[in-house]
Each structure stands twice: as structure tokens, then as C-alpha cells.
């Protein structure tokens, strides 16, 4: 996790807000550093994490996680992390047809696809243990990323249904959190993606949007991060607070600074 981002979001691994849906979104740049941040943050906060990683392999997240101070292999072995490696499972389900329903069963279906097996996988992974002792703080579902589901033939409505079901179970019933990454296609006019993005934007409590700089590529400032807090619980509190920062990604950390205040410029 990045300490500066924790300061900006006013959270620490000791106090974790519960029952929230966080939307990560990137436009014209790569927002995967946010996924690494939340993954290491929730693992350090002693939460039970179910990570649906559809884009990259386990070792990629593991190696970056080690730079950020968490070991995914240890977390997976002791049961804190349930990792669904999308790429490997997709090869399994595609080339060797399975008998029992597989979370990525929609890959073998022709039409818009049904994400119910995936939801059942998440439910199975995060349900609180019956033993009664609270080993982990709260369940967290992390998805990287939802836009790839659209590329795999699942309709935007099916993806929204899936997120809705997960929110109802994980956020509401089990007081956990859901974090999902969606790519913003920008001017590529991807209607399905826009439906998904707008729908999730309405439902989420916190939106982190990583954008490329409007002026183009810069070596010292990699992009701009817009943080939007929505749906605060007290009606009298400020509504929809928004902050914008620029950032630079380094080897093990991301540094944030106010717009135009990059150390390279000052």
C-alpha cells in the first residue's frame, strides 16, 4: 500500500471502513497501481480477501506485492487470500471441459453469459466461518478488471447484476467491501463499457479515477488521480467531496502531489 494514498483517503490498516463499494477507473493510462495498493492494504488490515484476477497471473501480483510488503503466497496458504487466477482457469475450462460448474463457465457459452457461477465462487470464498471466531476483520472482494468480462462476451447488464449481487452479500450482509477496476474507453465509444461505468459510478461510495495528463506524456508526472467521495452517511455532511492530485509511480511507491507541484517542476 502507498502511505501517501492512505493519507489522502484518510484510512489506515487499523481502521477500515466497512460496507463500501470502491470503483477504480482509469482513462488513457494504466490504473493497475491502484489495484496493487488495495490488495496490499486489505491484506495488511487483516481482512479476508477474495481476488478475482482476470488479467494477469498470480506471480505478477505476488512480485509487486512483495515490493509493497505483503506476501501473497503466505496469505494464500494461511487462508487469508482466495485467488482466482483467471488466465489459468480459462485455459482449463476451455480446453478441458469440466463436469462441475466452474466460475468461468461463461467462456464456453455462446450468448451474453451468466456470471452466476462466478458469484457462487465469491460467496463460497468469503462466507464467514461457522466456527464463530472472527479470524479476519471483514471480507473484501477485489476484481481486476470488469472491462475484460465485456471483451469475453458477457453483457454489461450481466456484469452489473453480478456486482449488485456481490454488493448485497458482501457489503450489506457481511459488512465487507468490494473494490473493482473498470477501464474508461474515453473516445473509443464503447457503449457497453460506458453503461457499466456509469452504473457502477452511481452505486459506489468512493471513486478513484486515474487519468493521463491532458497535455500528453510527461516523464515526471505519470498522471492525475481524482478522488470522489459519494453517498456519505450523514445527510448534513458535505456531499460528493472531490480532490485531484497528480502522481508519479516509482519502483516501490507512488508519490502524490498537488497539481503543478511536482518536485521536478519546483
Amino acid at each position, binding site marked *: 500500500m502507498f502511505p501517501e494514498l492512505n493519507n489522502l483517503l484518510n484510512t489506515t490498516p487499523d481502521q477500515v471502513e466497512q460496507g463500501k463499494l470502491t470503483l477504480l477507473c482509469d482513462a488513457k493510462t*494504466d490504473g*493497475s*497501481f491502484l489495484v*496493487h495498493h488495495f490488495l496490499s492494504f486489505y491484506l495488511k488490515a487483516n481482512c479476508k480477501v477474495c481476488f478475482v484476477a482476470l488479467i*494477469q*497471473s498470480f*506471480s*505478477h501480483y505476488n*512480485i*509487486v506485492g512483495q*515490493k509493497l510488503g505483503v506476501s501473497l503466497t503466505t496469505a494464500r496458504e494461511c487462508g487469508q487470500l482466495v485467488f482466482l487466477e*483467471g*488466465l*489459468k482457469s*480459462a*485455459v482449463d475450462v*476451455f*480446453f478441458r471441459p469440466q463436469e462441475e460448474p466452474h466460475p468461468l463457465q461463461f*467462456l*464456453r*457459452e*455462446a*450468448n451474453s453469459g451468466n456470471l452466476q457461477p462466478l458469484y457462487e465462487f465469491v460467496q463460497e470464498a468469503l462466507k464467514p466461518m461457522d466456527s464463530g471466531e472472527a479470524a479476519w476483520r471483514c471480507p473484501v472482494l477485489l476484481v481486476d478488471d470488469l*472491462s*475484460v468480462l*465485456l*471483451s*469475453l*462476451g458477457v453483457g454489461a447488464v450481466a456484469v452489473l447484476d453480478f456486482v449488485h449481487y456481490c454488493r448485497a452479500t458482501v457489503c450489506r450482509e457481511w459488512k465487507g467491501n468490494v473494490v473493482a477496476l473498470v*477501464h474508461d*474507453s474515453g*473516445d*473509443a*465509444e*464503447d*457503449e*457497453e*463499457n460506458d453503461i457499466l461505468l456509469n452504473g457502477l459510478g452511481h452505486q459506489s461510495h468512493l471513486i478513484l479515477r486515474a487519468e493521463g495528463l491532458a497535455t500528453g*506524456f510527461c*516523464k515526471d508526472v505519470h498522471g492525475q488521480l481524482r478522488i470522489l467521495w459519494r453517498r456519505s452517511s450523514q445527510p448534513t455532511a458535505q456531499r460528493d467531496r472531490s480532490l485531484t492530485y497528480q502522481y508519479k*509511480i*516509482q*519502483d*516501490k511507491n*507512488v508519490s502524490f502531489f498537488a497539481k503543478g507541484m511536482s518536485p521536478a517542476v519546483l
Partner: protein
Amino acid sequence: MAAAATCSTGTRSTGSMVVAASRNNVTSFQRRGPRTSGTDSGCSRLVSISGTRPSVRNGQLLVSTGLPALDQLLGGGLAVGTVLLIEEDKYNIYSPLLFKYFLAEGIVTGHTLLVASAKEDPADILQELPAPLLDDNCKKECDEDICNHKTESNVKMKIAWRYQLLPKIEARPVSSSRFGHYYDVSKRIPQELIEASKWHGFFLPEKISSTLNEDPCSLNHGYIKLLQFIQNIIYKEGFDGSNPQKKQKNILRIGIQNLGSPLWGDDICWTENCDSNCSLTKFLYMLRGLLRTSLSACIITVPTHLIQNKAIIARVTNLSDTVVGLESFIGSEKETNPLYKDYHGLIHIRQIPQLNNLICDVSDVKDLAFKLKRKLFTIERPPAGNQSLHKENISLFMI
């Protein structure tokens, strides 16, 4: 990724190398292999596959794309387990060159090739590969300045003449331990190199039968056959580590030409709202899954200028790791632009993957142009146009 895991443990510290050595009951005092140009001699013997080197940034195993200039722009080379997507230029003149460079590099370094095409027979594609420039002649062909020095070096060794003989004695015609070779586009690759290499061809009209089998998933029939073919080769020859081989590990280089074109049976190039608009993206996803779990690297050329739906182009870009776009000047207004008079087109590095890392090696130079000389394909930064335009302005003023 298997390759990254084994390689990163090998290069992370010499301590791990010592541990590995002691496990094999070999003394930890191992003589390092011959120091060849460009290779990192710190790589452990466990992962010494010819034609590869670990990345200096994150220990990722890299292979050369066949063009050393492109390797440099991509941060050292193409990572094993990833896809290089070439967005074809308008008349498909220069993208087959990059495709052939990639395959020729595979032959020279002894990698196994898998060539898939719907247009040409893979055997014909292999016949047209460029000839590699041998070590002795390489510098002479590429750089005319150095030929002046060659006569000097011949004269030098009068007393120690035995040492002069040493570099020329090579067991094979081309040294494969180097990373990145130069090729002569005007010549064809020698027949014996093709015959000595191991390759598999996938020619769509041969593999696809006229009767369509029912397959529930919405993938194009041609794509399904290609995926099954690739998976079969990977599994049978052990590139995914399924059969622990006693012989040395090797890389599988996959080349797929004109993916997404109508010849593959895909309709994204002629209609905007196509029925199976996720066929290509699904194929790319499954391909990524196959590559990440095996020691292979893939090059794909896609005619993105023909794809009607911009959303699909964005999705295809997201599902590929490295994306390079070629824009040739033929038929465009840039052909007459004095700035570009020496060049044949622009090359855009649209995307570089961030694998096992938070950051990626994005080069600062964004405007790059390429030109195809008689023998070489070079990538350069076009000179700033201020000087030439200035002169024209001044001369006009004088008149």
C-alpha cells in the same frame, strides 16, 4: 508466469545461485559462461536458454524481436509469455517485415516456431525470411565507417597470429548466444538454416473442414482450431513444463498473421455491429492464458485500420501486452512533407506492459520514424524540421 518466477529467483542474488548449485551437488565456484555482448552473465544455469536474457529492471526473461532498435524501444526485448501486437500499416507493406524479423530471429537462435496464417502457406513465409548477417560481416554491412578499420585489424596480428584465427572458428555458421541479430532484407535465409530449425505451420484453409462442428462458445471456428493447435504444440513439446525434459528448455515463438482479417472468418473488418464482436477479443484472452503458462512469445499483426468499431480496437489493445503501430506515408499527405522525406513511415509504441513491476520502461522519445533501406529496416527519430523550414522561409523572403 513460469519463466519469470524461475528467472527472477535466479537473478535476484548470487546467494540463490549458490543454493541452486549446492543442490545439484556441484561446487559453488562455477566459472561464468563466456561473456557475450548483451547477455547478463549473472543468470543462473537453470534458465540459460539460448537467445534470451533477463531484463535489467525486473529479471523478466526477454527474447529479441529481431530488430535491435525495436528491442531497445521496448525496454530490452519482448518478455516471454507476452503478446506483441503490430497494428498493420495501410497497405500491409512494412508489417510483414517485422513479422519476418521475429521469425528469422527464432530460427537463428534455435527456438521452435509456430507460424499461423490464413493467406500464405507457412512454408512459403519461411522461405522469404531475411538472411542473417554473420558476426564478421555484420558491422561492415551496417556501418560503412567501420570498413575502413577492418584492414587495420588484419594487419595488426602479425606475431600473435594464432589469436586472430580464434574468433572465426565457429561450430555453427551463426552464433546463437547473442541477443539480437541483424538481417539483410535483400537476401533470403539460407535453406540449411530453415531445415535445421523446428517449426510448425498452421494454414487455415488446410485445417478447417467445410462442415462446421457445433461448438457452443461464441468463438470463430478458425480461432478455435488455432487455439487448439497452439495448445497441442505447447503441451506435446513441453513448453508449459508439463513434461520435465532432460534436454534444454526452449522458447516457442508464435507468429499469427493478419488476425482479424476476413480471411480468418471474422467480420469485424467489414461491419460495425457484428454478431460475434467478441470473437477476436476472446481469442486474445485465451491466447494470453496459454502464453502466460508457457515459455513462449507471440507476434500478431492485426489490420486495425480496417476495424470499423473503435471499441473493439480499444479492447484488443487492452488485451495485448505490447502494441506497436505502423503508419506508412504512402498515399498520405505526409509523403510530401519535407520533414519526412527520408523516411517511409512513423512507428508508434502505443503500449508497453508493466509486468512484475509498478512502473514500465517508457522511453522519452515519442515521435519515431522508420525507413526501409535496401538491406535494413531502421528506426530513428526524425530530425527537428526547424532548420530546413527556416531556410525555405529565408529564401522566399529574399526573393
